[in-house]
């Protein structure tokens, strides 16, 4: 036993050091290959280095000791925040299929510039939540490939795992031009462009399927999920809220990236997205209220204090943006579009947490709260996404687009002609 502990300590040390160096390297690359000069930058570096160091410790512990030792999961409460992160991340990634749909299917020119950043954010959110979190969460993570060969078409999870695999491929095709342009492989890039539209259609279909299926996951627990959230309409609610979160995420991501990297962006891009989000939000809220009333579920707001509180916060977060957007003198300003997007993103994420965690507590008689290792892993996965996105924005032609005046990312070949979605599939 002592020997084992010695080996574990060695692995932990190596893991922590490796992750800390990776964090240092990432910070160095992010700050343009320079060491920090200002105090705030030093603080940022330290934060990431400490977080990833803790993440190294957490990951080594999880794989060495197993789920029981490092998480607060139990037989009473088998799904924790790692599974909830899958739900949240996939809902957040909805912006990708939505923007791709607006650009490639509806061909709305205004949204061309935000396509690349939003698709990249969706791709990262998708990879890290669906594949990343599952690799940590599955008891037998090394058998994650099993659904490819062992079919069980009655299982929602089987369908979701196939959607995840296929949609990762679709996102890769949507994302490939960014890398191919950077590498200067124009012929490959052009070929990828010709197959993009069918892939986008597949992507929208797959997203419709698995966004709703994430809701269907919980149809099987009518007695365990609190009636505030359990309804036969769960798949429809999950799809609608994913669509809404897609609009909000597109606003959120494009506003943040275009402002952070000081790129020009037409204000109407953001405000149009905010306006597109509003009717869907109204329909969603109306359906939620009608459904709760029809099932007589309002009593649970008062019967379970914690759940009632979380439900109220969720509904407030989703109602708040309506007031912001419906004020016409505000809606013309993009900062208000941004202000409307934040509560929507938060509200949808809270909805997923409520369904996968808070709403399951009373009936299972559990008091699950994630352990520090579970929380650290979640924060790490999120920070991986942010860092990779930052690196991509710095080193890939993320803002490359004929419509926005040909900004070239540092290091990109100057005579490179960016191929916009206009030329896609030879429709021009």
């Amino acid at each position: 036993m002592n020997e084992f502990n010695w080996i574990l300590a060695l692995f932990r040390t190596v893991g922590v050091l490796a992750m800390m160096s990776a964090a240092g390297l990432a910070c160095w690359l992010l700050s343009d290959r320079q060491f920090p000069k200002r105090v705030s930058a030093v603080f940022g570096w330290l934060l990431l280095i400490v977080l990833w160091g803790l993440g190294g410790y957490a990951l080594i512990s999880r794989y060495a000791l197993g789920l029981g030792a490092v998480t607060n999961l139990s037989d009473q409460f088998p799904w924790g925040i790692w599974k909830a992160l899958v739900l949240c991340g996939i809902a957040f990634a909805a912006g990708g299929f939505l923007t791709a749909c607006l650009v490639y299917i509806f061909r709305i020119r205004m949204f061309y510039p935000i396509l690349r950043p939003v698709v990249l954010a969706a791709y990262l959110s998708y990879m890290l939540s669906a594949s990343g979190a599952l690799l940590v969460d599955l008891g037998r993570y090394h058998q994650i490939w099993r659904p490819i060969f062992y079919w069980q078409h009655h299982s929602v999870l089987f369908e979701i795992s196939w959607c995840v695999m296929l949609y990762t491929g679709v996102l890769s095709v949507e994302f490939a031009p960014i890398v191919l342009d950077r590498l200067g492989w124009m012929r490959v890039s052009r070929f990828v462009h010709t197959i993009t539209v069918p892939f986008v259609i597949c992507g929208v279909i797959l997203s419709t399927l698995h966004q709703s299926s994430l809701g269907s996951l919980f149809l099987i627990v009518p007695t365990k999920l609190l009636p505030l959230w359990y309804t036969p309409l769960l798949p429809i609610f999950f799809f609608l809220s994913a669509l809404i979160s897609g609009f909000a995420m597109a606003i959120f991501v494009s506003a943040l990236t275009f402002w952070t990297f000081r790129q020009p962006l037409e204000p109407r891009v953001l405000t149009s997205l905010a306006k597109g989000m509003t009717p869907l939000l109204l329909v969603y809220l109306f359906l939620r209220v009608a459904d709760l009333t029809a099932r007589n579920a309002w009593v649970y707001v008062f019967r379970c204090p914690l759940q009632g509180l979380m439900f109220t916060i969720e509904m407030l977060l989703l109602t708040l943006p309506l007031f912001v957007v419906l004020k016409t003198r505000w809606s013309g300003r993009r900062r208000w579009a941004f202000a409307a997007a934040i509560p929507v993103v938060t509200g949808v994420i809270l909805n997923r947490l409520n369904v996968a965690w808070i709403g399951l507590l009373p009936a299972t008689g559990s008091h699950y709260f994630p352990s520090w290792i579970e929380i650290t892993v979640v924060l790490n996965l999120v920070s991986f996404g942010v860092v990779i996105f930052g690196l991509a924005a710095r080193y890939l032609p993320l803002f490359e687009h004929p419509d926005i005046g040909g900004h070239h990312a540092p290091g990109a070949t100057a005579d490179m002609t960016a191929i916009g979605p206009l030329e896609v599939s030879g429709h021009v």
Partner: protein
Amino acid sequence: MISRRKFFQAGATSALAVLGARRLFAEPQVDPNGCAGVLVDLTRCIGCRACENACRVRAGFGPLPTAAIGYGAGDGKLSFHTRTFIDFRNGGPKLKQPVKRQCMHCLEPACVSVCPVAALEKTAAGPVVYHENICIGCRYCILACPFSVPKYEWDNALMPRVGKCDFCADRQAKDQSPACVASCPTGALKFGKRGGLLQEAKARLDSQPNRYTSIYGEDIVGGTSWIYVSDTAPEELGFPPGLPNEPLPSLTWKAISKLPFVVIGVGLMLSAIVRWRTRNGMEQP
């Protein structure tokens, strides 16, 4: 761009294919009367825990520790190592009615329907069995089971397993009764065909209305292979409240079975939009 005729042809063909496939994919039904079952007569149970001991021995976890043997002792819950136990916490504050807990072996089990890799299987003979070499460890079965039966080997870092009663499927294949039934000294457990046991349960209720008041397992979640008769209401015996008589997998199947139509509908709609937005080879503003 494909022609309009081809477009509709493709739509119609895929719709037909889906309808055909749905018939092929229909759930194989287990014979509710012919499959194996156990009749648990709680009025005959004395809480001796011989079944618990026999189960542990048969599953290879060793006999009950001597200190744990006794009325009401033990950790009193199902776990990875405890596939069955006698639950003494029921029947109201005064009456301590012992209730045997184990997998109910539903006729249409939620755990089987949710498993993404078919690691759980409802065999035609009756038992719901777990194929541990297929399992990926998603733990959906643990969440989905209405009776909270499957448990997890949380301390296994590499190959954790799900632990649940398998109705001694191996013993049944050799024409033996399950270990717990074989060990019961009072005849509280009776092994047989489910249909016959259900008839007998009803006969006991009819002939001794003072002794028996309830049957549990006939209709609940579509029926279970294990059937309980007792003088106490099922809710007071600690069975989960609010379960429907509809099999739980059908709740999910209602959603899943519509997916092919979503695929075709969304696909046709999007293709139509692409066609509309690029008609005459022109980009629309």
